[in-house]
């Protein structure tokens, strides 16, 4: 009896250990190599559109003419906005041509930064902050709610092409955690917005998604009605009066 119990316990312990940490590695970036698809291959023609060409010139003017490659990040960003939020390989080639470097040097940059999407994203790319403060405040529930509501997996685009959900690292809104960022590519490079929605609950985030789907622009910032920006809920609790002058000396006398 005892032996059976012991062996059972041993099995349990074993099982616990066997639950290896082999959870899928969730890197925010996609693959580090390119696979040709019909809409993403080097033969797809791509160039900056007429509206963006002056912008390209403007960006290049920020850098000395012999250091054109310095413009690679702003140009990639512009290309991404123009192309609905993601960079096909031919767009990177086009940027390489503009800054006069080998394409691989642009690929290196584009793969390094996780905010350059090298796979298709939705018109609204929802980025859930997964860094520690947000995670403690429930970013996983936020993400689960989003994924469940939209019926997609991470980095997948909904059937209507409107939404995709990704993960990102800390955006500095820890005081209002958890938060998501909505990158809005629905209006091209001109109407591009990149807004934070903070103090979220699983319910509220679904409401935001629904509002976006209806074409509304829900107010960004904290979603807690009791808070103003990052102030405490229900109004200030400290610093209520006028700040006192420094007690040590009279500054005016100096």
């Amino acid at each position, binding site marked *: 009896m005892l032996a059976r119990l012991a062996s059972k316990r041993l099995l349990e312990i074993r099982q616990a250990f066997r639950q290896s940490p082999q959870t899928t590695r969730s890197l925010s970036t996609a693959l580090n190599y390119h696979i040709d698809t019909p809409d993403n291959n*080097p033969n797809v023609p791509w160039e900056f559109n007429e509206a963006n060409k002056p912008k390209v010139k403007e960006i290049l003017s920020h850098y000395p003419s012999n250091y054109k490659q310095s413009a690679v990040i702003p140009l990639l960003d512009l290309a991404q906005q123009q192309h609905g939020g993601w960079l096909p*390989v031919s767009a990177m080639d086009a940027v390489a041509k503009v800054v006069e470097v*080998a394409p*691989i*040097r642009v*690929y*290196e940059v584009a793969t390094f930064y996780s905010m350059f999407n090298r796979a298709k994203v939705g018109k609204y790319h929802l980025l859930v902050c997964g860094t520690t403060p947000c995670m403690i405040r429930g970013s996983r529930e936020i993400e689960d709610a989003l994924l469940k509501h939209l019926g997609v997996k991470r980095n997948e685009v909904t059937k209507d092409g409107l939404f995709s959900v990704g993960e990102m690292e800390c955006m500095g809104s820890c005081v209002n955690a958890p938060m998501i960022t909505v990158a809005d590519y629905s209006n091209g490079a001109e109407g591009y917005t990149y807004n934070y929605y903070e103090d979220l609950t699983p319910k509220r985030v679904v409401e935001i998604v629904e509002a976006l789907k209806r074409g509304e622009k829900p107010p960004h910032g904290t979603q807690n009605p009791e808070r103003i920006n990052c102030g405490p809920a229900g109004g200030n609790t400290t610093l209520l009066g006028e700040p006192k002058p420094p007690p040590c000396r009279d500054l005016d006398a100096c």
Partner: protein
Amino acid sequence: MGLGSLASRALRSSSSSRVLSSNPRYNLIRTIVSTPELHKPEAAAESASEPDLPKRTPVAGARVHFPNPDDVIEVFVDGYPVKIPKGMTVLQACSVAGVDIPRFCYHDRLSIAGNCRMCLVEVEKSPKPVASCAMPALPGMKIKTDTPIAKKAREGVMEFLLMNHPLDCPICDQGGECDLQDQSMAFGSDRGRFTETKRSVVDKNLGPLVKTVMTRCIQCTRCVRFASEIAGVQDLGMLGRGSGEEIGTYVEKLMTSELSGNVIDICPVGALTSKPFAFKARNWELKGTETIDVTDAVGSNIRIDSRGPEVMRIVPRLNEDINEEWISDKTRFCYDGLKRQRLSDPMIRGPDGQFKPVSWRDALAVVAEVIHQVKPEEIVGVAGKLSDAESMMSLKDFLNRIGSNNIWCEGNGNNIDADLRSGYLMNTTISGLEKADCFLLIGTQPRVEAAMVNARIRKTVRATQAKVGYIGPPTDFNYSHDHLGTTPETLTAILENRHPFSATLSTAKHPAIIVGAGIFHRQDTSAILSLLHSLSAKFPNLVTPEWNGLNVLLLNAAQAAALDLGLVPESNTGMESAKFVYLMGADDTELDALPKDAFVVYQGHHGDKGVYRANVIFPSTVFSEKEGTYENTEGCVQQTVPAVPTVGDAREDWKIIRALSEVCGVRLPYDTITGVRSRIKNVAPNLLKVDEREPAVFSGLLKPEGNGKVSAAPFGVTVENFYMTDAITRASKIMAQCSSLLTKK
């Protein structure tokens, strides 16, 4: 770095440091104290003497060159004072002091990346260990390479490197010559603390030469830097970030460089290994033979690694003056051609057109009989592009004794002037090209004709932004160049100041003009050469007492020695009237003009083009099986060393000719290779000065008479397919794969 040396160093350091600390004189930093005993002169002399340390020799013969005596600084490496020029890094200072710092990402010939952190050393007054490869040495710096801090730092780095490195040494081709393996023996732990899963990376397809196992990669970026800096192909890059970082091309792309094989050597781990050599042998089973390469006229220094009778691989050998430490892919991977299509027995073509193996006695007798039946002036000898000086000497002696002087070497054309050595050599020398500040390439595509010379030009262009002008058909360059034209007309324009490049040439301090050996096949060879001499008269910087910028870039290993030995054709129509042709490894000679009834002897090692027309075949040895003298395009004489035994009944070329001469009744007066060489000494004494460059004495007075006008025909492409230029490379399967996959169609 050998594992043994590391281990012994670790041992030595522990014992020597104990000795040192007990030695009072070791205390170099002396505070100011009253020491009356030191005021005595003999005591002062004693204290001023060098600390009593075991003398150290620089690592791998590291040499220090002080360009400016003011820029000398002194640093202390483990207490040992060493003088180095300003600007050297701590790692270089250590290597001068005889301390080999472990490293992965640092490479002498590449830019400094400083990302592997293996070279951490302790520097006094520095709060943290410093990466010695990226840290410039400062005067008075006290570098400690063997302290517990340095050791612990390296152990930490090693643990992180091994975190994601698979434990597949038993099935890894780098095993036994792996930097990571060696250094982990010195700095690695016997167990890991890493319990998470190791990452895995998708392997990349870089072509038929380089096999990738990217999971083994430690991201040292040596291959990325090599590709972009030395090879000049911007294909490889570092993709991703953090633990997802990987080396790759992003888009599916083969590495189309003629130097791609070198990434195998510089990869410190088994991530990039040789595809043809995969799972063939272990490096400790191989016998290394230091010899030279003959597939082009550069004469790259190589080591042939063989196991038993088989050549397993070819790797480069350091020679700063010729190939540095790189070799071209053709040199490296032609070795499987040494085993295929070989001629192993003497053969005679029967009446049915089929070859029948016979004994040497019968074959020689048949040939001797035919020789006696033809008139001496109907005898022609052609030396192939891989022939060594000894065999060419004996062939020439043999034919001369019979009475013919119609003998030449492939690739030298019909109207070459071999009187002046400077007329067919690279007078600047390959390493001398680094001083040039302006290049004019005429009818030559160095990238395919002599990849190592091209690498040197690229190095110069990268370092000094030297201008490169090119006259010839449009071709690939891996450095910026101006395409000036396609015909010799452009050259005339430059000479007559009608071309903007004339200004570039006249302002250049060390201009270098490189003419391809392709012009030897033109009708207007001498006219072009005389144009060049006019150029040297017009641009005085081209030829000065200390600089000779007139170069000919030869194509084949045999060419320079053949011209030194005087293998020049007597008449332009030797082939049309020939009745007896002796082809000594000559496969690229046009035999169409040969009369149908001519008797052809083919002496060679491969069943290649020459065999199709041959009546008798004498099997001979390839460069890996014989001792032969070769002169490269800059006039540097080098010798091959036999690495493997010969195939079947094959014999060395000069021995076959010597035997034939005896059967013919005109016995050549030498029986040993030393005998042949003493005969060579009479003809071309420079061919005996191995590893020396006999400078060609240039004389501007001896201008070749410009007979005829320069023709308007454009310069042609000399090498159609880089990977297949001679009998060995044409027999090679690897080279066939390369030419089908990598050459541009």
